[in-house]
């Protein structure tokens, strides 16, 4: 069993520093304490070539940290890079191939016009679909329209996700946005892809997060408390949107979640706190159903009732989510795990969920191309 024994963040947002400096800023507090123990580095990053003119980023980072000879790899799986990197690190430890793994998630995306960024991100689509002018935000709009129509949900239910996540972000010192928005603010904000509005989409972000993952039996040599990864599930779905049977279900989320929970030996109702992939607000609702927190078509009611806010039945995206915390793509899945680590070790500050014992994270690639679900248990 592997355990997250430490976590360290940079502030997310528009940052002056370069990608390598951001990665090192997040890793330095961990390297300061445990440099001699780290025997593998996994870097989660997806777009260093496209945004930063950098390749082989894992070796560049390891040298800047003076861990030149520590083996390292880069994991790239678009928005799901973080979940995939955690699965790789967990596998390295469980197989005995490595003991103490430094996991770094980093991305620097600001500095280009939005139109260029939208193009870069849309490069994950199949050419036959991308050529129609699709963007990831437009897919969110198709999904929102289908969901509202299929389940007769009120438009405000989707907007409430943005209200909740901005509130949570206002409590997170590392979040890109640290101010609340009202339902009226969201509903009156600029349309990006009809019917979804700008407050309902994640921003373009820079940022980095680092974790130290160790075998459970040696946790006492490190921080003494952590978040144990008790189950992982990974699932892929077709990358061809036209080949999917439904726009309101993400098969990869459903299957990955089932597998992670089964391997973890717990039920979804045992989970105290969850981080989902809310690139846009409607995704959080649909994922909350596909992960099993709510029945299909009922997630919107939970959002309306406040069931997913801190203090509710199942707090979701206590970090602020991608929506408010920001979405530096390679860092996001690692940041989800770092939030769960903080929640399960009682160090989440104003966002702390009472008596949090089991956590859940869902890192998704593409627009449902693949997903990594992870189930965690607080250990000390």
């Amino acid at each position, binding site marked *: 069993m592997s355990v997250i024994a430490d976590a360290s963040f940079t502030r997310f947002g528009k940052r002056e520093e370069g990608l390598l400096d951001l990665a090192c800023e997040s890793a330095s507090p961990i390297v300061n304490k445990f440099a001699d123990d780290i025997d593998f580095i996994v870097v989660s990053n997806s777009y260093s070539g496209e945004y930063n003119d950098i390749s082989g980023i894992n070796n560049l980072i390891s040298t800047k940290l003076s861990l030149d000879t520590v083996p390292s790899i880069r994991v790239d799986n678009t928005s799901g890079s973080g979940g995939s990197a955690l699965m790789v690190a967990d596998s390295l430890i469980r197989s005995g191939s490595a003991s103490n793994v430094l996991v770094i998630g980093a991305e620097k995306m600001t500095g280009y016009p*939005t*139109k*260029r960024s*939208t*193009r870069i991100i*849309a490069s994950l689509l*199949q050419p*036959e*679909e*991308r*050529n*129609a*002018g*699709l*963007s990831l*935000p*437009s897919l969110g*709009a*198709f999904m929102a*329209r*289908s969901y509202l129509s299929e389940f007769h949900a009120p438009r405000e239910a989707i907007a409430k996700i943005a209200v909740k996540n901005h509130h949570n972000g206002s409590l997170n010192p590392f979040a890109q946005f640290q101010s609340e928005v009202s339902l009226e603010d969201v509903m009156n904000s*600029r*349309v*990006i*892809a*009809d019917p979804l509005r700008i407050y309902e989409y994640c921003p373009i972000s820079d940022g980095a997060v680092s974790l130290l993952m160790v075998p459970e039996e040696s946790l006492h040599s490190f921080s003494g408390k952590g978040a144990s990864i008790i189950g992982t599930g990974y699932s892929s779905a077709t*990358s*061809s*949107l*036209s*080949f999917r049977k439904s726009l309101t279900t993400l098969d990869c989320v459903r299957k990955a979640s089932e597998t992670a929970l089964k391997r973890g030996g717990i039920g979804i109702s045992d989970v105290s706190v969850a981080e989902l992939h809310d690139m846009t607000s409607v995704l959080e609702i649909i994922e909350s159903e596909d992960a099993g927190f709510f029945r299909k078509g009922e997630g919107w009611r939970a959002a309306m009732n406040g069931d997913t806010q801190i203090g509710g039945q199942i707090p979701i995206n206590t970090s602020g989510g991608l929506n408010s915390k920001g979405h530096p793509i390679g860092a996001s899945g690692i940041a989800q795990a770092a939030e769960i680590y903080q929640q399960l070790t009682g160090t989440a500050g104003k966002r702390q969920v009472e008596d949090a014992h089991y956590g859940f994270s869902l890192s998704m690639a593409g627009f449902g191309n693949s997903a990594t679900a992870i189930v965690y248990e607080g250990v000390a």
Partner: protein
Amino acid sequence: MKISRCRNCDAKFLVGRVFCPSCKSDAIEMIDLLEGKVIEIVSLVATPEPFPDNYSIAMIDANGIVLFARTDESLKKGDSVGITEDEFGPICNKI
């Protein structure tokens, strides 16, 4: 516009593949797809390079094949559309 058709089992699909997703045959040919019905439509104001700054995208059902196409027209669900291509990709117009 062109889509793929399996000569072995007649499966039709938008995204080009080496093997048929239904029967795994590699006997794939390209066929013309000329019209369909709008399933859903979304208007965009934040668009990717190299596309124009404003347009709508229609999700279209063409005899069971789902595809996407740009349009500058005010289309609604159920409209019949013709599908052609411009310098960027598929476009559709009401017929």
